[in-house]
């Protein structure tokens, strides 16, 4: 690695080291073998250094056909971006040390679901807001309060819904708390792309029909070259620190570096890049930024429902169809919107190809700006289904259910250049929808964001690193949510009596 800068370039002298003991020149095969041998030495050397330095344990995700991705099991994690914390994910992907599935006696269990704001890998577990609340409340009515953090980076409400049914209930929680974070509602429709945390199922709910959750985008993604590569290397991603580093770098760069995304796109789906380019050129030729609009409509390939009850094709009257067209129309100058919302339901890797009972034909039109009201109706309907579905699951398992929100930097103290609204809705708009769903359906709701807005402009940045909450922010959330949790648990006790 180190080379003398004083040496002039000169032809390399014939080196005896290039000739093996036998005297004959190295054969190409032997050269390759030597090359690979030294590469292996280098890799083992780096693995050893990373082990000694405690670095490289940065990969946390394994893939799941239904839910998209979950935490790895039996995995040590060292988180270095934003804050710093070391954690161990047990054989169910949980971070709490010594956690058992069976509920200990004299214990209230509070399960909290959410995304990275809840997961908080960047702060030690005992500094997360849940653990702070549990510490402060214990003992409550002679019982210990145990906090179970099910937060997983990038999770949408749909994924939380699936996680609740599949993983959470076996822990027999007394209270299930879902933390709503900015853009969760949009992520319920996000199309998979190169970012691993965007590999999600999506949910649609048409009037008069039950909620449909479609895992087709996940399955498609897992069959894509990138998905196959990720699955093929899962052992390395789990055990190798170098692979952990590469996975973390891949995630970081695919989230933040447009150059990297383009680079990956070109190699993994060149066809898509060409198509996107064509659309962009067509848009540029027509003058000004405008994007193609996709929406559901009966077309040459009609909807193919998996079961009669889950047929979105028969969704509603013409008025609803019209509303849906409106809802899935992107704003004329909002590329993020068109990509995220519209792409989600018609992406060829997503819902467009009907193989899972929901055959929807993508249709392309140009349309007016997004009608916020119609869009809000659609979102409200879907969130209502998800929240009430979760509550029903909780009730069936003897748990209470509540919603709270988390403070968001883009709303309280946005960094320069940070987008503060999405699909024409800022976080306040999203929370209005969540609040109205909770009020209508009588779901207990805790508004932490509102309390955070009362803080002075000077104090707000103290709550956050670049995006996620600092230990101070965790403490603040604990201060706000503690009375809410205490009351819910106390009400539960009185109801049981």
């Amino acid at each position, binding site marked *: *690695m180190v080379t003398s800068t004083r040496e002039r370039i000169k032809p390399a002298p014939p080196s005896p080291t290039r000739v093996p003991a036998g005297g004959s020149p190295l054969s190409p095969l032997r050269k390759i073998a030597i090359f690979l041998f030294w590469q292996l030495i280098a890799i083992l050397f780096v693995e050893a250094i990373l082990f000694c330095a405690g670095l490289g344990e940065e990969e946390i995700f394994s893939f799941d056909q239904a839910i998209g991705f979950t935490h790895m099991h039996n995995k040590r994690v060292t988180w*270095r971006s934003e804050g710093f914390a070391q954690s161990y994910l047990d054989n169910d992907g949980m971070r709490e040390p010594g956690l058992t599935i069976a509920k200990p006696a004299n214990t209230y269990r509070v399960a909290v679901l959410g995304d990275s704001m809840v997961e908080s890998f960047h702060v030690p577990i005992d500094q997360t807001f849940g653990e702070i609340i549990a510490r402060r409340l214990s003992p409550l009515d002679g019982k210990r309060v145990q906090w179970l953090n099910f937060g997983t980076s990038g999770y949408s409400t749909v994924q939380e819904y699936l996680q609740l049914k599949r993983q959470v209930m076996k822990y027999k929680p007394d209270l299930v708390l879902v933390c709503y974070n900015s853009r969760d509602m949009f992520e319920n429709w996000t199309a998979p792309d190169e970012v691993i945390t965007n590999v999600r199922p999506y949910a649609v709910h048409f009037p008069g029909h039950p909620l449909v959750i479609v895992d087709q985008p996940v399955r498609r993604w897992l069959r894509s070259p990138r998905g196959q590569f990720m699955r093929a290397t899962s052992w390395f991603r789990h055990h190798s620190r170098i692979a952990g580093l590469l996975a973390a770098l891949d995630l970081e760069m695919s989230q933040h570096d447009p150059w990297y995304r383009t680079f990956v796109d070109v190699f993994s789906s060149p066809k898509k890049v060409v198509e996107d380019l064509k659309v962009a050129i067509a848009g540029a030729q027509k003058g000004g930024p405008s994007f193609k609009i996709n929406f559901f409509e009966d077309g040459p390939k009609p909807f193919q429902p998996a079961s009669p009850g889950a047929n979105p094709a028969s969704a509603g009257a013409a008025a609803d169809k019209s509303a849906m067209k409106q809802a899935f129309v992107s704003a004329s100058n909002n590329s993020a919107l068109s990509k995220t919302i519209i792409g989600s339901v018609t992406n060829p890797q997503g819902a467009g190809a009907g193989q899972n009972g929901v055959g929807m034909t993508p249709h392309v039109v140009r349309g007016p700006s997004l009608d916020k009201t119609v869009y809000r109706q659609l979102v409200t309907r879907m969130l209502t289904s998800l929240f009430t579905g979760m509550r029903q699951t909780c009730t069936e398992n003897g748990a209470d259910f509540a919603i709270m929100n988390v403070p968001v930097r883009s709303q309280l103290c946005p960094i320069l250049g940070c987008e503060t609204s999405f699909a024409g809705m800022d976080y306040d708009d999203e929370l209005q929808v969540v609040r109205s769903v909770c009020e209508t359906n009588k779901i207990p709701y805790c508004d932490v964001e509102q309390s955070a807005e009362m803080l002075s402009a000077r104090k707000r940045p103290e709550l956050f690193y670049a995006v996620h909450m600092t230990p101070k922010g965790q403490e603040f959330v604990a201060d706000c949510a503690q009375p809410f949790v205490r009351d819910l648990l106390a009400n539960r006790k009185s109801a049981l009596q």
Partner: protein
Amino acid sequence: MIFSSLQYLLFLPIVVVLFWNTRGAARLWLVVLASYFFYMSWLPVYGILLLVMTTANWLIALAMDRSRQKNPSLLKPLLTLGLIGNLGCLCYYKYTNFFLSNFCSAINWFGAQLHGGSGDIVSWTTMNVMLPLGISFFVFEFVHYLVDIYRGDKPISSWMEFAAFSAFFPSQIAGPIKRFQDFMPFLRGPLPWSSALFAEGGALIMQGMFKKVAIADPIGSIVNGCFAPHVVLSSPDAMVASLGFFIQVYCDFSGYTDIGRGSALLLGIRLPENFQLPYLSVDLADFWRRWHMSLGLWLRDYVYIPLGGSRCGQIANSRNLFLTMVACGLWHGAAWHYVIFGCLQGIGLIVQRQWRDFLRSSASLQSAAKSALGQWAGIAGTALFIIVTFTIFRAPDMPTGLNVLASWFVGSSGFSLWSPIAKSGVLWFCGIYMLFWLLSEALKKHRQIRLFDSVPLYPAAIRFASWTAATFLMIAARPTIATPFVYFQF
């Protein structure tokens, strides 16, 4: 686009491939276009500034050359015009706000004296001037070019060649400060492409990247907070902050130079060296011969010697040294702590010269100084002086710098920086760098070395293996956000 970014890792191979597949004018066009693309990726409008300054200097140099034969009396006015234009530009972008704020303060001070201390009288807002990247470096190259033409060198007749010289992207932003007499032969006839060229260029790039990404950036992220105003530091924290910056600034700046020199080598062009193990200097004069060598040589040739150099009396010589180092300090930035840094270096050089004369007066003292112990004492003393003055250099202002230095002695005993140091793994990276450096030096001296009879040391395989290891270690040490190089601000 910075050297340690993904964009540059895509940009450089494209330029290298195109460079070796073009010839003559096309190759020259490629170098110029690539350099302007690189420069304008920061702020496109400053590409125009560079273009205008390049054209103006090229024309002035041609006019000077012509006037030398036809009308020598015009030579000096033309040089003056060129110097005023170049230095005026530098002063406008770099020193306007410094002069304005100090002038304002001076007026206020006098006003307050006249009015019996009634407070501010003059309040001017500072101008909104953004410093074009690398202006300190390319202005110095222009000054060197004009002065050398004035002294009798032949100017570059082709505008394209001159544009390639002035905008050459590997040295554009933070040097090394080139000399056109050295650069042009390489531009006109690059070193032939060979595996040795690729190996040396690639090794320099990897070495520079490693120093920047795995050492300088993690250290910077640890010690930066210690240089904030009004921070209360414990003694160990303050000392580690000073020592940390001492290591950071070397790895950052020499890392940049290595990447730049390596990139240039891949284009067959050898740029001048900028560092020769400066922290092993036995005295301050030795340090300035090994640290930022291209700036030191520039200051010697275009400031120190024109002032009279050492061929004058002792007092005049001391004055020349002092003024040269003040200019060096001021070149680094428009703030008083840079001026103080320059003053301290000047005073240090004067004192060291006196000390050297004193040692020469006695043979026993001289032999003691030349002994191994004397040499190591010299290295330690020089390093300590540099650490102290670099602390002032790094701090945002004088009070903060003095606060850090005072905390060395009067701070509490806690060592809060240890935790981030241990978590970052930076000590491991420093150790690995030292190990690689020692190994490579050993391999250079003992080319016949064999690990086992059956495993010959196949140099290319080892080289690629070390690059692989360095790449993974850099990823392990990566910052969350690419950090600009320290010397970009100058």
